[in-house]
């Protein structure tokens, strides 16, 4: 086991992007079990300057957040996101999988050209499966890159998700009597959302 721990330690150190257990197993000698070694390795790095973190299905070594001040030289300037882009991103993260029409309904304005484009290009969102509603609209979901960037293990760990769900703010609540309001023209309802997906 110590040897397997060394192997995954080396692989994770060498990679800048998260690796999943399948990838690791493929590179390790036959019969190795990265999953168990990961548990040990994670423990070993607890409280250290570098930690083993889970990112979606993958694993990665990342410096401890409290030491960020030492790394000012390594800071990468990310493109400044517009308010529209930030809100769109948050809506996708909390409501995923979500259609364009749903995003527009929540924000009350149409999603501007380029906003989705930018988020796709940053690889923070991707296309999810189509919704089984009329027109079968495409949906958006967040990526592993998004989780990695914001230090989230999974979309379930989004801050405040539980409270929002409890308050019913993630419900897809149709307007009463179908009396539409501006911007709600094409509404699709009732697909399983963040809500159901994350019901354990």
């Amino acid at each position, binding site marked *: 086991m110590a040897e397997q721990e060394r192997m995954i330690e080396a692989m994770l*150190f*060498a*990679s*800048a*992007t998260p690796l999943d257990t399948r990838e690791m197993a493929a590179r390790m000698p036959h019969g190795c079990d990265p999953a168990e070694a990961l548990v040990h390795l994670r423990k070993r790095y607890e409280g250290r300057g570098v930690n083993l973190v889970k990112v979606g299905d993958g694993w*990665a*070594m*990342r*410096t*401890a*957040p409290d*030491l*960020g001040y030492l*790394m000012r030289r*390594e*800071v*990468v300037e*990310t493109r400044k996101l517009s*308010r*529209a882009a*930030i*809100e769109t*991103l*948050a*809506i996708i*993260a*909390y409501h995923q999988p979500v259609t364009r029409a749903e995003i527009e309904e*929540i*924000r*009350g*304005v149409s999603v501007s050209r380029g906003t989705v484009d930018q988020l*796709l*290009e940053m*690889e923070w969102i*991707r*296309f999810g499966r189509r919704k089984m509603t009329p027109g079968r609209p495409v949906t958006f979901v967040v990526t592993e890159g998004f989780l*990695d*960037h*914001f*230090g*989230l293990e999974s979309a379930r760990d*989004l*801050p*405040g998700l539980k409270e*929002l769900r409890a*308050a019913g*703010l993630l419900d897809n*609540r149709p*307007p*009463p*009597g179908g*009396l539409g*309001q*501006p*911007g709600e023209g094409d509404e699709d309802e009732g697909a399983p959302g963040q809500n159901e997906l994350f019901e354990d």
Partner: protein
Amino acid sequence: MAENDFDDGARPVPLAERRAAEALIVDVDGFEGPLDLLLTLSRTQKVDLRRISVLHLAQQYLAFVERAKALRLELAADYLVMAAWLAFLKSRLLLPPDPTEEGPSGEELAAHLAFQLERLQAMRDCAARLMGRDRLGRDFFARGLPEDVTRRRETRYTATLLDLMQAYARIRTRDEFRPFVMDRDAIFTMEQALERLRGLIGFAGAWTDIVSYLPEGFSGDPARRRSATASTFAAALELVKEGSAELRQSGIFAPLELRRKD
């Protein structure tokens, strides 16, 4: 949920509030749509969004739109649509419910609007919390020197989903743009005219107006007629030049006549 607030807005408005309202109007471009504006207006009520007075809010919004119109600001259609909807909502909230009327009650509509505002606010808060998190490349870092020991070099071709979709869009739009290529249908080229004249002139021993040589479908539409006339004329000159035809005109603007030359 909406308190019935029969205030007509006639009460004197405190200075600070007036200033705030004016700031809103001047800054109309700064709003991301009617819902955003409503949310901003609702903040002046300083209450839980669930307990907000939708009626009061509707009045504020309508007053805003009125004043913006007075200032001759261009208001986007969706602001006006929202205004119309809020005016409708206001009437529903003010009038006693009509039992024969179908559809949702004013209270239900108001509750939904309050829900939308609360949800939008919640998403804004989430966005702020998200952006305030420790972030990769700013607060925590990946390996600065990933070890890609280049011992066995293997070329791997890659492409992103964006590349794929753009490539497809490129091909397909090239297809879709074919109609524009068809604009050239209105053009009858000289080569075409020459070919047509060569074929026809063999049968025309007598003087014939060159206009009668215009191809089918090119005499109606002026643009097409112009193009065909010009190219047929040019083709006729070409035939004369090579000695296979004669051209004559009896006077200025008189018909041009063409005849085969043996």
